[in-house]
């Protein structure tokens, strides 16, 4: 027990040392260095709430070590020892009060920002917003530009200073769509159309991150499967390219030439390939399984063909959540 004091001090210093270490590497910390309005607001919010938390946490941490140190039995100075002292209404009121106050403040800020940063709320801007539809497929992202009439896979590009309305859904297991530089995240879920509004204040991505950007700038967060991107890419052998369906790259080029997407914030997604077995799964799904061949079901399927799938979903939207098959 000789070295106990040393232990305690080390334990206290360790997190501190680590904190400094952490803060020194800020350059790459994209959440703390946002490139768009939404992300900037979210960062403000993070700072405000962290600050409020620290008001209480720092003193408590200090108090912890101070009390443990001062009232250690081995202490040379004889401190007051009051084994029966177990209640004080005044003190307890104080430490119910302080957390209640702080949490109240955080709660007020949170509620305000919840409305301000509601992802489905459009962003005010002089520029006309563009719409990009996002579909999470098994292992890859599909982007549709309805106004431009183009589609891309694992690659998305849009102009700076123009609000983007992402309309998101999935045709596979759930996924989550996140551009940390621009602001937070929303799920893509089958049978539902979500909205996410983001804006880029400056061109980004390509220039800054070079060849490897696709895995860098915009990460696909596969909420569930999280198998991995890179090694799958390697298995297929063409990791680096953003894959665009059909003559996609050409189309994207055309769109850009048309001026609509000039000076764009270019984002490439890591692409995920459909493995052999996954393809089988997909194929099996497209063919209606035998137990669903009843007349009723066929009718439903027939009806649903009238409009393209994505539109059908978006069209049925009801406060963000659309149930399929009603």
């Amino acid at each position: 027990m000789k070295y106990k004091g040393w232990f305690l001090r080390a334990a206290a210093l360790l997190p501190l040392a680590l904190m400094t270490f952490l803060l020194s590497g800020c350059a790459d910390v994209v959440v703390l260095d946002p490139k768009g309005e939404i992300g900037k607001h979210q960062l403000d919010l993070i700072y405000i709430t962290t600050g409020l938390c620290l008001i209480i946490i720092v003193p408590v941490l200090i108090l912890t070590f101070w009390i443990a140190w001062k009232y250690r039995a081995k202490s040379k100075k004889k401190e007051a020892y009051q084994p029966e002292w177990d209640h004080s209404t005044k003190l307890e009121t104080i430490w119910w009060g302080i957390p209640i106050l702080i949490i109240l403040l955080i709660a007020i800020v949170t509620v305000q920002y919840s409305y301000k940063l509601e992802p489905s709320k459009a962003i005010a801007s002089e520029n006309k917003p563009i719409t990009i539809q996002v579909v999470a497929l098994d292992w890859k992202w599909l982007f549709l530009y309805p106004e431009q009439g183009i589609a891309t896979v694992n690659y998305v590009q849009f102009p700076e200073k123009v609000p983007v309305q992402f309309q998101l859904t999935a045709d596979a297991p759930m996924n989550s769509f996140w551009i940390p530089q621009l602001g937070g995240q929303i799920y893509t879920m089958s049978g539902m159309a979500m909205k996410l509004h983001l804006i880029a204040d400056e061109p980004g991505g390509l220039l800054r991150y070079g060849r490897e950007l696709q895995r860098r700038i915009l990460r696909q967060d596969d909420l569930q499967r999280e198998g991995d991107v890179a090694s799958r890419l390697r298995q297929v052998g063409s990791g680096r390219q953003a894959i665009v369906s059909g003559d996609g790259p050409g189309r994207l080029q055309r769109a850009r030439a048309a001026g609509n997407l000039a000076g764009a914030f270019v984002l490439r997604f890591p692409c995920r390939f459909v493995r052999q077995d996954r393809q089988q799964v997909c194929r099996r799904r497209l063919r209606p399984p035998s137990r669903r061949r009843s007349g009723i079901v066929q009718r439903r399927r027939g009806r649903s063909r009238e409009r393209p799938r994505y539109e059908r979903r978006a069209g049925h939207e009801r406060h963000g959540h659309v149930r399929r098959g009603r």
Partner: protein
Amino acid sequence: MKITKLSDFFVTGDPLIYGADVAIGLTMVAIVVALTAFKRWGWLWREWLTTVDHKRIGIMYVIASLLMLFRGGVDALLMRTQLALPDSMEFLKPDHYNDIFTTHGVIMILFMAMPLMFGLFNLTVPLQIGARDVAFPLLNSLSFWLFFMGAMLFNVSFVIGGSPEAGWLAYPPLSEKMFSPGVGQDFYIWGIQISGIGSLMTGINFIVTILKMRAPGMKLMKMPMFTWSVLSSCVTIILAFPILTVTLALLFIDRYFGAHFFTLDMGGNPMMYINLIWMWGHPEVYIVVLPAFGIFSEIVATFSKKRLFGYGSMVFALMSISIFSFFTWAHHFFTMGSGANVNAFFAVTTMIIAIPTGVKIFNWLFTMYKGKITFELPMLWTMAFIPCFIVGGMTGVMLSVAPADFQFHNSYFLIAHFHQVLIGGVVFGYFAGLYYWWPKVFGFKLNDKLGKWAFWLWNIGFYVCFMPQYVLGLMGMTRRVSSYSWDTGWWSWNFVSTIGGFLMGIGFLFQVWQILHSIKFMERVKGDPWGGRTLEWSIPSPAPFYNFAITPKVEGRDDWWRRKELAAKGVQDPPPKYEPIHMPKNSGTPIVMSLFWFILGFGFVFDWLWLIVPGAIGIAATMLYHSFNYDTDYYVTAEEVRKTEAKAGEGCLMAHVAANQSSHDHDHGHDGHHDLEALRTMGFWIFIITDCIIFGTLFATYAVLMNSTAGGPTGADLFEMPGVIAETFILLTSSFTSGLAVLSMNRGDKKGLIGWLIVTALLGASFITLEVTEFLKMIDEGAKISTSAFLSAFYTLVGTHGLHVSIGLIWMVALMLQVAKRGITPVTKRKIGNISLYWHFLDVVWIFVFTIVYMMGVR
């Protein structure tokens, strides 16, 4: 699943798995050889496998959970190794990585934290409240064996059939057959389901134990804080676990019968699963952390040599946390886009939990304030916990700020948060508890020096491992990725994190070494090695099998401390007067029944009817065997008690101080059945509460899905009211006749009792017949469980009710036979009372089914 080749059955192709195969094989052979060589089979069976002694069950829980900690820890280190280096690393293939993060999460929460927690409940609670055992010792043993078999079933998937790989909460549609066609997901469902039933029963058991079996004089507000925390945790268990049971059952029904609760097509609703699983999942994290709070409260008071500060606040905080934890679940999916109103609501409810949690910290600090603190191992872990949990709580509050969570969710920031509260709170807490109560359980102390090594390795390792993960989250690294590229800039942080992970691994090895070393060198201790304050320290270590030779009489909080002070003042006690002690007999029923559950689960995993049927029959048979078995307890003679005490007492004079206090108190303790029957009735009522939640959850899913007919038939197309009204009439009548049966019983009229029971059973049987006919007709018309989400919900809800009625019928026949044979005794009286309660309950449920399903359905 059709097994055509051996390689469909055994997992092949990975050297790690072959290694595991060999290790498992060798271990099994070694165990069998050792048991045979030392002729220990009988001993194992008599002393351990069939024991109903809470202390031994506790030890088995602890051993099993430490083994699971080892497996979960190996999983963790495999993942960290894979992530240590970018890109080039192909240590784990992506699919294997998926397996491992899934099993890691499940094992750590459900097969490590939960059983370790139950182990500590068992080792401590009866001793703290001055009880001879838990309320239902046999059920306790069954809970353990169900946990054990569930854990085994889950772990078997590593070498047989393939592991689950859809994450620890198995979100659909990924976990549905369409995307997870293998058996791994079924192992997940059945492993958790079987052990979950055990957890639920433990919850009931400890609630009754704590409410009913406290030593005389121990008012609720005189209970030790750990006991309070167990109570709050168990209340949360009985309210939350039924939701898990239903959720997993629905997923199973989807996968097995092709239903559409959570599928992409036919009106299924995956979002409903996410809601349901977190309605259990969030309370679950508090279920495991509340007892840790209790442990810290005991330790802080003991090692500060001071009373716990703010007892009332602490109790209030515990209880309010367990209630509030039910209103925060949606903070796990702020990003689902439910809108600002919903997000703001759940953000605020989540933050509110931080308030009582913070208050507890202050109370611990002020317990230490003006104390005399010694830093033995339990206190060291407590000191490590406080700052760690403060920071973890703070990041929790940051996450609960919904719009900010959009940037944290699914990233390593979140991973760091929950590991900080789970390791810094739960694991540190349970370790502290183990170190604290170890001498009580085994009668010797754990080596201090090795323990310090383990402590520092764990603590330094923890910060080195998880602080970088906060940064990685802010750098955009998402959870569940198995590799990343060099240019992300994540490499150095990940590498540091991996080092931290291994430091904790070495810390664990030091603990194993510490235990082995201490077993070898045995520093024996007496009853009260730490200067304890509560009753468990008043008896010898290890405690005799009946715990308290004489039931103590409690006068204050920290009663043992009070008595030591009295003794120091020279207050003398009269010599002890021992009396016979009533004890439960050991039983093989729990382990045998759990084995049948294993068989059943394994059968369902592979869809092998030849295993499912014997499994189900075996479960029913053991249950009936138990129901007919009246030879369950015995008396320890006063003479034997005297001898045992004298032997233990040589080392532990203090014990008598406690014992003698209540030698003239006869209102509790040895006297048999009257007390016991009251306990059992209470337990049954709590069971009915859990069943209410099961039906409530089913009604909720039905309400969500009742319009999702996917173009298929609606209620109006299907339901034929005359038949349903007849069913309703029959069931209501049967409730009435079961009431008449009870009335006859109370008059002591055995013939009338049996007669009315027969009438009730016949009515119940005709209800079931009508219902089955109705179902068959609907199925014949093409309205199957797989036709639409509406029909899935309909068949499941009404079918669950029908299943309850059917089980009730079998039970009723069993009881008639017992009454016929034994007449009206306190035991049969209680049993008949319970079944009649059950029957009325099913009637009430049916009234809801009738109005909500049928009446609203035909409109």
